[in-house]
């Protein structure tokens, strides 16, 4: 593991090289927060709570969702697909590294970068400009753990799609579809509570809710007991492990095909 840390450090540094991108991302988030604020304000005009959430809670959920959106979007699918297409993958195959762990750490570096320059400023904007109140409770402390697990789930899905590049010339369609599915079914745009009951039931059985819904609920309603939070974390952990192993098996299979069919 120690040998991969410099990789995370390197991608963190690359983030710093392109520092102006973040300025635009923050401005973008500011605009999004403004729109979301007035949209949800009008939805909440006649009622104090909807689906068990107050306006403050819903806006906190949605706003924080936009703050962590960039973290959990790993772009691993695009990067890996590109490397396969361009044949750059050969570079990795001649090095004593495990490609999946390598890719994971590479993404981890840019994720941590994003926390410092995007998530924290966006959260500050929410409290200072939109006067969102953060509640206090054990959820606050579990949030970082949950976020890391969410990142693992998201990474494994993206990595899996990237590996498809061995079989298909373009993963554009797949990636675009995945993007929409993840954004909607994970609760990144709207809290899952707002979906119809029947759909909610299905969504809780899918891995996507582990990406946004779980960590965001910990911040939205942090003052709940561990009997609520612990199962949520365990479900995330299970999905992270399952998807990581599945992606690994898929990679091993793809590499075997590559070794025989050539590239």
């Amino acid at each position, binding site marked *: 593991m120690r*040998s991969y840390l*410099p990789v995370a450090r390197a991608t963190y*540094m*690359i983030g710093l090289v392109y520092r102006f991108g973040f300025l635009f991302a923050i401005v973008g988030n500011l605009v999004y927060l403004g729109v979301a604020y007035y949209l949800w304000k009008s939805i909440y005009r006649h009622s104090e709570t909807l689906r068990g959430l107050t306006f403050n809670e819903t806006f906190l959920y949605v706003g924080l969702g936009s703050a962590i959106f960039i973290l959990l979007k790993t772009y691993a699918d695009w990067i890996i697909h590109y490397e396969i297409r361009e044949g750059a993958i050969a570079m990795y*195959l001649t*090095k*004593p*590294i495990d490609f999946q762990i390598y890719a994971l750490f590479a993404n981890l570096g840019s994720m941590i970068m994003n926390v410092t320059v995007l998530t924290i400023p966006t959260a500050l904007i929410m409290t200072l400009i939109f006067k969102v109140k953060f509640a206090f409770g054990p959820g606050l402390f579990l949030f970082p753990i949950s976020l890391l697990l969410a990142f693992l789930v998201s990474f494994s899905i993206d990595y899996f799609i990237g590996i498809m590049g061995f079989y298909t010339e373009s993963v554009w369609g797949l990636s675009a579809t995945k993007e929409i599915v993840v954004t909607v079914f994970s609760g990144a745009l709207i809290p899952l509570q707002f979906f119809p009951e029947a759909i909610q039931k299905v969504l809780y059985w899918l891995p996507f809710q582990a990406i946004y819904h779980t960590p965001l609920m910990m911040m939205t309603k942090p003052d709940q007991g561990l009997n609520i939070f612990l199962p949520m974390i365990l479900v995330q952990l299970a999905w992270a492990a399952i998807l990581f192993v599945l992606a690994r098996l898929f990679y091993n299979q793809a590499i075997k095909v590559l*070794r025989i069919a050539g590239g």
Partner: protein
Amino acid sequence: MSLIHIKGLSKHFKILNRREGLGGAFRDLFSGSYRTVEAVADISFDIEAGEIVGYIGPNGAGKSTTIKMMTGILKPTGGVIQVNGLAPYENRIRQAQIMGVVFGQRTQLWWDLPVIESFKILKEIYKVDQTTFDKHMGLFNELVGLNALYSQQVRTLSLGQRMLCDIAASFLHNPQVVFLDEPTIGLDISVKAKIRSLIKTLNSERNTTIILTTHDLGDVEALCQRIIIIDKGRILYDGDIKRVNALFGAYRTLKLQIDNFTEATLQTLKDKLTECFGAGHGITVAETEEFWTDVTIDQARTPLSDVLSFVMKNFQVIDVRIVEISMENVVRKVYDGALG
């Protein structure tokens, strides 16, 4: 026991026959006929530790495929391949530790970061200890003055600087064998010379085995004691460079652009050359591209300068170029039995 042992190695690819046009592309979606391509048909050789071997051949000869099998990227269809006693594709991570690879068209450096960061990453990936790392970095600096480049972003390096860094990086972990695939491609003469001397010094300092594939016969001449020529997946020649040297070392092609050129000019040129230098002058004349006439000269028999001054005196020459014999011509000459 030789460092690299290859016997009866072959690699076949299955390739989908693409049909023509839009309709054909649709039909290819559902069914397709495959044809087998023999990228490597039957190759055997042994390479000892410390050798620099030139592995050459025209485009599509199977060079890259062989390199990919030696580095463990591809699994052979048949035959035996062992590097340091182990099959590369079965022991990839362990084998990668004793190999260094440079693909001329790609870089292993981090594009967006200063050069030194890539070296630091490689240090951890290959688990190079600090003392060795410092020693090697000192050596690289001594050889090509890399210190000056360390703080530069890789993307801002020139192609030659990048290649020097890439080659140095491939030697960082003290590998037993380094594969250099077209290391001088697209570089000018002075940078080529720098790269050649770097390779040569690293080879002699660490006794590192080097397998060099290239299109530039100058590289081979400057670096290798032994040369393996392959074409169509088979070995044409494997042996001392001196014999092959006689083939391309002595030959130069004089490219001429002659004023008012006609078919007759070509014939006159031929006749006059024979008249002046006598039969068995070792000169062949052919029109290659439009307006250009190629006069290939065997310098062992007729000095180039004599031919040049003769042509200049007797013909209205607009432009002249002198080029080394091409890889394709060497291969053709080998086919023609030039090496016996």
